């Protein structure tokens, strides 16, 4: 029984933390958010190249296909960093979720080797059209789309689809409706295999959203701590007032008790445990609550500043709201837990947590 990460895992996490701190400051996110930024696409390309140099796109690509062959447990540290720095969905959708689907294909499926290799190198984006999401994130900028059709998986090149884009409250998120026509040529997995690939993809998507929300909660708390230490009223920093402290302490409590839930879900998924789905749902709900409370408390302790475009809090707050209902909303995840645990034959009570 060992509920800790290895030194290597922690070191990689720390490296990515410093990397994003340097390469993706909030000013850059703001530039990408504002449409007028003429250099937006070169900023994006530059950042994508640097992320690839860090090896993030190769993280869970199997070693035989040119990757590092790491697992959901490694990803659970990464997604928190992606959340903390507000990294857009295309990165995690490509590097984690699409890779998960592709890696589950039989080796003789040519799409597998080709695209896993290209992803590991870092030059491409893959969008994932899971039926749990109404719209497909970043489909307009994808090179390849993995799409659902009656449980089959189809791999469709960007040139064969028509895309219309919706903006989200999180301006870094592009939600697309995709028109396309399935054909035997695009099908890469039949419904039998596809069903399990889509089920795994839902778990990975939900787990990734959960990890990002926990990272976002941490970011919002950090922003709020910094602001409340600076801002003075009644001759003192507002952070010294107990009501302000308790707002942020409550977020800290929620976050502290979401983290082990998130980590356990990643472990269960990596190990293929039968309750992995319920555990992922638990993580999604717990981290979502933490992020939701962080945004609510964060805006409150900022006063009117919290209600402005200028304060960075908004960027992270909006992303948290968006992710809370992505990859299954709360109803979906609560129902999974109810189906698994509100029943007479469920393994409940002391001693059953790790069985």
């Amino acid at each position, binding site marked *: *029984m*060992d*509920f*800790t*990460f*290895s030194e290597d895992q922690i070191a990689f996490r720390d490296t990515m933390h410093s990397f994003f701190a340097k390469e993706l400051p909030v000013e850059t996110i703001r530039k990408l958010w504002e449409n007028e930024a003429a250099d937006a696409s070169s900023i994006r390309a530059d950042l994508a190249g640097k992320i690839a140099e860090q090896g993030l796109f190769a993280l869970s690509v199997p070693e035989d296909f040119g990757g590092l062959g790491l697992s959901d*447990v490694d990803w659970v540290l990464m997604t928190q960093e992606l959340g903390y720095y507000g990294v857009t969905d295309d990165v995690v959708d490509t590097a984690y979720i699409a890779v998960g689907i592709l890696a589950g294909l039989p080796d003789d499926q040519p799409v597998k080797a080709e695209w896993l290799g290209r992803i590991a190198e870092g030059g491409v984006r893959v969008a994932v059209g899971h039926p749990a999401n109404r719209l497909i994130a970043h489909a307009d900028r994808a090179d390849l789309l993995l799409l659902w059709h009656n449980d089959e998986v189809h791999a469709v090149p960007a040139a064969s689809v028509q895309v219309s884009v919706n903006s989200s409250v999180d301006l870094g998120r592009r939600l697309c409706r995709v028109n396309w026509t399935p054909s035997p040529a695009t099908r890469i997995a039949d419904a039998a295999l596809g069903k399990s690939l889509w089920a795994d993809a839902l778990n990975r998507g939900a787990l990734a959203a959960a990890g990002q929300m926990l990272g976002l909660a941490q970011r919002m*708390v950090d922003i709020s*701590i910094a602001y*409340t*230490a600076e801002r003075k009223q009644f001759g*003192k*920093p507002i*952070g*010294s007032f*107990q009501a*302000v*402290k*308790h707002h*942020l*302490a*409550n977020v*800290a*409590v929620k976050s*502290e*008790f*979401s*983290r*082990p*839930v998130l*980590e*356990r879900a990643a*472990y*269960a998924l990596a190990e293929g445990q039968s309750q992995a789905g319920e555990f992922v749902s*638990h993580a999604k*709900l*717990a981290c979502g609550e933490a992020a939701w409370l962080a945004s609510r408390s964060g805006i409150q302790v900022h006063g009117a500043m919290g209600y402005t475009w200028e304060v960075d809090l908004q960027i992270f707050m909006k992303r948290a709201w968006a992710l809370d209902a992505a990859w299954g909303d709360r109803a979906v995840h*609560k129902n999974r*837990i*109810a189906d698994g*645990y*509100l*029943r*007479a034959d*469920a393994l*409940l*009570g*002391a*001693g*059953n*947590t*790790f069985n």
Partner: protein
Amino acid sequence: MDLKYTPEQIAFRQEVRTWMQANVPKVPLQDFDTEEGFMQHRAWEKKLNEGGWGMVTWPRELGGRSCNLIEWLIFEEEYWRAGAPLRVNQNGIFLLGPTLMEYGTDEQKKRFLPRMASCEDMWAQAWSEPGAGSDMAAIRTKAVRDGDHYVINGQKTWSTRARWADWGFGLFRTDPESERHHGLSYILVPLDLPGITIRPIRQLNGLAGFAEIFFDDVKVPVENLLGKEGGGWGVAMATAGFERGLMLRSPARYQETARRLVSLYLANREEADRDASIRDAVIKAWMDAEAYTLSTYRTASKLVQGGKIGPESSTNKIFWSELDIHMHETAMRILGPRAELLPEGPDADGVGNWLDGFLFSLAGPIYAGSNEIQRNIIAERMLGMPR
């Protein structure tokens, strides 16, 4: 990360389970806040200790099993799963015991620990005073040195089961000129000394679960000082550390409550589902009991590998106490109009002991450092917010 038990851990679990199955009383004991119940619980602790299960985390040479925290968690899971009685000896073995091991002289360890383990001495905590609750540094009860004795005058209050305990431990002001947390000393006091009057206080459920202790020129030998004279605050903080950290409330307790809550919900599902928010509340109970367990295993893993417990442990107290209230409130809502019935009534079929548990859950955010105080600690020490 490897969330599986080792074969040794599985064997250990089996050993605990076998012993509990053979020894846990079949008929529940009476409430340990009654004299009869206290005696029954004391007898049970004796038996537990004779079986070698009294203080599993204590070192072997003191009669324990030198269990690490993961093994302790396994032990607790089996203890609660077996429906074993509440630990009437917890002040001694979980709070004072570890403090004595750290700060006591060899003579004190020899004198107190074995009797504590065998339940010959039962211990009460004597910190709170009428003017010193959350603000423990406001303690005024004096212990004035007179030769080889301290002479104690003043009053302690809210002392749980002090009425039946043999000894009390707490902080006393040994330097009458001192202020706040200076000049306090940690002293162990036999509760049958001349000059001590103990007056029971009835709690919310009507039982006299705690008591006031009045000291009128009570003479305590200086050998009963734990740590240095005037250094009591530091020693007391160590006791508070054990309590607030991990050992006070093991997750097994809440997992068993969550399990019972799910059964209660299933047994009354049709009625309960008339209020759609009840199902949500039951789901939350499962989630939070699980989260508390996972968090405790995570912390235990870190400590077993030589890590230190940090200020984030102040989040524990808030989490378990709010979870306990949530679960009991939910049970009350499921029981609906039956929830108010005391269990012995002719129509109180199936209400169980939820009401009693509900009442006790309300004390959780108050004792062992109120949740407001914990939030202050989290904000200042964990988040680094200004004082």
